[in-house]
């Protein structure tokens, strides 16, 4: 169990983690989602006692990380940026880790085998490919057989085989009753692995819900309308805005309507006497739902596509 209470981190004037409160429960995979710069890594570093919160607190198993007598045996973590000395071999790195926390040294062999790095145990970590570094990170997280695990973007740099492996690993760790927090900015990835989703944007909590629930709600439906011409499209868009819906112009006579059920869009078009060439309701994919949720809070965005207001 990981507990965040009003967790806040400021760098100078900038608040990068803003009053986060949520729990990460054992026995399931919790996806930790947010666009680049949302504050995921910073939050994880605070959980691990690496960065000091500006406010609030983060607890692992009810205690501060710094209070753990053998932290490696209670919390396993794989951080995004490498934390392995490039000149040290993978085996020596894990051996030092094991010795620091009194983990039996044979565990080094075991976890190296588990991540498929046995053959390169004697090679310097600096020579590893991104995917191999990620595997070494996973090996470190597993070394102390901890009940709580944090993975910061573990799928980075993994090949399809590695992707499948890491998904299975997350699932099996959760099935064993462990607490698993996995960050990512790819909803599609989390859709496949996570049971619970915590979404943040600009350091703030945007959603904390089971994956299924995340999709529910009318705002998660979009209505696609195809109209015969530009004039008809303008007229209908104006009417829809008046009724409180948002529209998006997709070029030609295409219009995407948010925040209004498909029946009502049809009725309004009928009222105006506008002919429709197409009218359909489409469930928004988790990816789109996520994009919608975070659009307003994305830290670094490419210029937004033209949206008609």
């Amino acid at each position, binding site marked *: 169990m990981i507990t965040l209470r009003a967790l806040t981190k400021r760098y100078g004037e900038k608040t990068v983690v803003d009053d986060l409160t949520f729990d990460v429960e054992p026995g399931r995979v919790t996806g930790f989602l947010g666009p680049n710069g949302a504050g995921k890594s910073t939050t994880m*570093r605070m959980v691990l006692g*690496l960065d000091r919160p500006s406010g609030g607190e983060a607890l692992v198993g009810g205690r501060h990380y710094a209070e753990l007598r053998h*932290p490696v045996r209670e919390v396993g973590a794989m951080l995004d940026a490498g*934390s392995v*000395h490039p*000149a040290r071999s993978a085996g020596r790195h894990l051996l030092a880790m094991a010795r620091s926390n009194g983990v039996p040294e044979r565990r080094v062999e075991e976890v190296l085998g588990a991540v*498929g790095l046995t053959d390169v145990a004697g090679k310097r970590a600096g020579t590893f490919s991104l995917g191999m570094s990620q595997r070494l990170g996973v090996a470190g997280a*597993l070394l102390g057989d901890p009940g709580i695990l944090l993975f910061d973007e573990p799928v980075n740099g993994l090949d399809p085989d590695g992707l499948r492996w890491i998904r299975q690993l997350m699932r099996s*760790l959760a099935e064993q009753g462990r607490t698993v927090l996995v960050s990512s900015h790819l909803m599609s990835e989390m859709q496949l692995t996570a049971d619970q989703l915590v979404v943040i944007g600009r350091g703030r909590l945007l959603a904390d819900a089971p994956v299924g629930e995340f999709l529910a709600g009318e705002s998660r439906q979009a209505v696609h309308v195809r109209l015969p011409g530009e004039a008809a499209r303008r007229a209908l868009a104006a009417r829809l805005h008046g009724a409180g819906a948002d529209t998006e112009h997709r070029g030609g006579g295409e219009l995407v309507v948010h925040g209004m059920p498909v029946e009502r869009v049809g009725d309004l078009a009928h009222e105006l006497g506008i002919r429709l060439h197409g009218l359909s309701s489409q469930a928004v994919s988790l990816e789109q739902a996520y994009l919608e949720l975070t659009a307003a809070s994305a830290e670094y965005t490419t210029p937004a596509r033209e949206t008609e207001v």
Partner: protein
Amino acid sequence: MAAMTATEITTADERTGGGLHGAIHAEWTKLWSVRSTWWTVSAAALLLIGYTALAAISVRVQADNGGPEEVLPSAPQITTEAVFFLAQYAVLAVATLFVAGEYATGGIRATLQWVPDRTRVLLAKCAALLPALFALGAALAAVSLVIAVPAIGGAGGGFTVGEGVRASLAVGTYWALLGAFALGIGTALRSVAGALTVSFVALVVLPMLCGAVGLPAVIDYLPGIAGLNLMLGPDAVNNITGQPVPYPGWAAVALLAAWSGAALAVGNAVLRNRDAG
């Protein structure tokens, strides 16, 4: 790449260790598992023994050519010069890399994850590094003295076995305390280049500066010169200040320990208060 799932990983049941002992064991493992440690230690050995041997031969040649016997250095004095002018920079490098290098590589995040008590991390680094530096310094100094004796061939000042032992122990002590100083500076500054610069300024530039601005009384209390005085011994004339060594050996050790303690205290404060980096 073959990969198993976590279900096949056995449980870590034999749970012992950790604490300060574990932290020291881990730091010891880390110290000797990077090549830079072996390179810098080899460099220290080469510089110390090489300089001593060459200087000893040079003394013999000077004596053979009828040089003034009384100003020619003894073997312990040559060894001291070798440490002060050359080998101490290798010691500085190994200690600085040991801590500041972790900030460059990100290794510090792993270190603090394994051992979240930050003062314990610094203690463990000291406990792993300083005895090793002491032993290396003393052993290498002894070896260089043994090499110097036949090379110098009766020229220069003589020395007793007791003086040789004392000189070797002094070199070991200086290396250990210099290592502690560099660990403190490296922890405080978190940058290899920055820490090396500051240490160099403290050891070399400051004495020159103090001499230049007319504060010669201060020079003997700076860390590098205190180390030099320690190695020269109480009866010698310091060849940097040109004055006799003004205090006994234990005072030199106390002075050095104070400098190292201060550096470590600053480093510890920074380590405890700042984010991991």
